[in-house]
């Protein structure tokens, strides 16, 4: 794909995520993107060609002290057909501090992970006596709650940024703008539509069979 087209796609993606954040739980956030020579793109707050590590985003609607910090990053690539921008990796992390010292939880997705855990998973800090007891019984004396990778929806139906924002608001972890719910719904509809289309592209026979069964075609 030509560089100007990649640039446009990256800009649209970053703009959409920035808009979603600023209309719900943040103020004045502007994600940026870096496009590398192999076409891989890194998106996050403050990324530059020589610094791919995004800054944390304060969860506050103005000058108030942030209630927590969100670290989010995307790695994007064009799909194999070079038609659509695809998320190769995403990470939504919550921290108590901007220096990434105190992790609360993180949702991670990696299309082709180096490890054997689910491609989409959730990890959370804290103690879980029951899980620790099982781990210890099975010979993992130092395994903590944060070391468990809870599966979340698989590659296609993993949680979206909207889901994480909704969690932050519903659990009163972050202050929200008045119409945050409408923004989330708008983003979710868009996300679900894209995911459904991608699923159909990867499995058109199943989609055709269902449409035939429903008398649509």
């Amino acid at each position: 794909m030509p560089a100007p087209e990649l640039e446009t796609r990256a800009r649209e993606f970053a703009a959409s995520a920035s808009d979603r954040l600023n209309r719900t739980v943040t103020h004045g956030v502007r994600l940026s993107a870096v496009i590398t020579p192999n076409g891989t793109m890194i998106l996050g707050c403050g990324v530059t060609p020589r610094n791919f590590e995004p800054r944390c985003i304060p969860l506050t609607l103005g000058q108030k002290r942030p209630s927590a910090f969100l670290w989010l990053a995307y790695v994007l690539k064009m799909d194999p057909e070079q038609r659509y921008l695809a998320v190769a990796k995403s990470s939504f992390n919550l921290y108590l501090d901007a220096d990434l010292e105190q992790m609360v939880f993180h949702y991670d997705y990696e299309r082709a992970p180096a490890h054997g855990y689910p491609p989409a998973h959730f990890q959370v800090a804290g103690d879980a006596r029951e899980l620790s007891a099982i781990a210890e019984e099975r010979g993992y004396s130092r395994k903590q709650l944060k070391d468990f990778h809870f599966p979340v929806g698989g590659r296609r139906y993993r949680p979206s940024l909207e889901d994480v924002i909704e969690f932050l608001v519903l659990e009163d972890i972050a202050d929200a703008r008045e119409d945050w719910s409408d923004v989330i719904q708008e983003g979710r509809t868009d996300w679900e539509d894209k995911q459904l289309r991608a699923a159909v592209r990867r499995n058109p026979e199943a989609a055709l069979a269902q449409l035939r069964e429903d008398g649509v075609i």
Partner: protein
Amino acid sequence: MTPEEVAAIEVQFASEEDVTEAVGSALTRAGLTLEQLREQARQSRFSSERARTAWFVISPFVARA
């Protein structure tokens, strides 16, 4: 978002040299060698949050052939 706001989103192109520099900086901040970080990633057990986030952003560029 207005068209002006979309246009204000910064999108930059990195050179191969930039990528090398970005990978090196991330490793320095994590305080690990590439091999150490790669091993932590293989187990998905990182020594710090800096290590985990570093792997997230550099892994597309340091995959084994």
